[in-house]
């Protein structure tokens, strides 16, 4: 471990940020979608399963966060702490917002599907597009994590 507690903290924050912020995004998104699914169930007679399934789409941000966290996890020193912080935090913010807004898309899709079941696939497309941006943030965080220097004696 490095000697500066400040950079030690920043490095650890960067490592954990993708998971923490991604989980916050998933919580907000799944909550919005789940509430809309519960409301829609009061108004429809069938197709409950796909409403709940749609509301769970924003869970993926947490999974991406876990993978990025594991890829960033290494011994922290002054050479890699700023990079860990920058990549981890920015990726985390992207996952947070994508989860949050994907949840809003899911809620709208559930609302639309309730009145017009035949548009289920198309209504879910905006949520899938938002997911695509989360995937970009995830993939490029992994690529950049590979270019960060490994501390002497580190993983």
């Amino acid at each position, binding site marked *: 471990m490095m000697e500066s507690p400040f950079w030690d903290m920043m490095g650890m924050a960067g490592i954990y940020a993708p998971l923490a912020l991604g989980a916050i995004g998933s919580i907000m998104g799944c909550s*919005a979608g789940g*509430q*809309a699914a*519960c*409301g829609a169930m*009061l*108004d429809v007679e069938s197709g409950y399963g796909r409403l709940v399934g749609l509301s769970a789409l924003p869970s993926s941000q947490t999974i991406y966060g876990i993978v990025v966290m594991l890829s960033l996890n290494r011994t922290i020193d002054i050479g890699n702490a700023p990079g860990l912080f920058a990549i981890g935090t920015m990726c985390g913010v992207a996952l947070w917002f994508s989860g949050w807004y994907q949840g809003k898309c899911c809620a709208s899709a559930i609302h639309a599907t309730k009145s017009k079941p035949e548009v289920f696939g198309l209504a879910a497309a905006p949520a899938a597009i938002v997911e695509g941006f989360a995937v970009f943030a995830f993939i490029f965080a992994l690529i950049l994590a590979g270019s960060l220097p490994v501390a002497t004696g580190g993983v």
Partner: protein
Amino acid sequence: MTMYYTLVASLPALPRSFDAGPSPITASTLHHRLSILTDDDRRIVGQLSHFFRWDRQPIGRTDAEVIAMHRRLNHEIGNPLVRRLIEHRFEMRTLVAAVRCQREGKSLPELPELPVSDLIRRHWNQPGFRMSSRYQWLVRFCHALDENRAQQAQRHLFDELWSLWSRLDQQYHFTFESIILYVARWEILQRWASQNTELGEQRFDALVDRILGEACLEI
């Protein structure tokens, strides 16, 4: 801002037009669903419902009473959207009342404190108070009155309210404003259904057919 995902998603879609069919939700079910609202929001919806109940009672009310009600609501109502809906409704009432007075050859009535009142006073002797381009529904409304078609005139009023409130609704997603606009449009549906005898007969026939059908199945 409180988001009402569950409540908005639980409300059945309203028809495209207020005269396109029966109300998709009964008063008691709507009331039950609205119990999800927070206390403050429920109070605001209560204010709006109270106004609609007052607005439904058609005649036998003096100009002074209408003006007093307008002042009181202006003082009491804080929610900007509810205030906007009520102001718009008062504006329409004022124009309709002024048109009726003008056509009956009466003098200028007492008017509430609204921007449209000044225009009516200024152009009292001119047809449509020179506001036909601004309020296009007023032209259609006057034509219906000319043809002595009261229900058609009422349809033009509801059409104007429905269009404006539906347009406003597109700006809000799962917020309290969505609920306000739903309740407001549902009120138009109820009013139109209560005034439309043809729709009432159709509904009655459909209910009788359904009950008879169920009875036949049981036998």
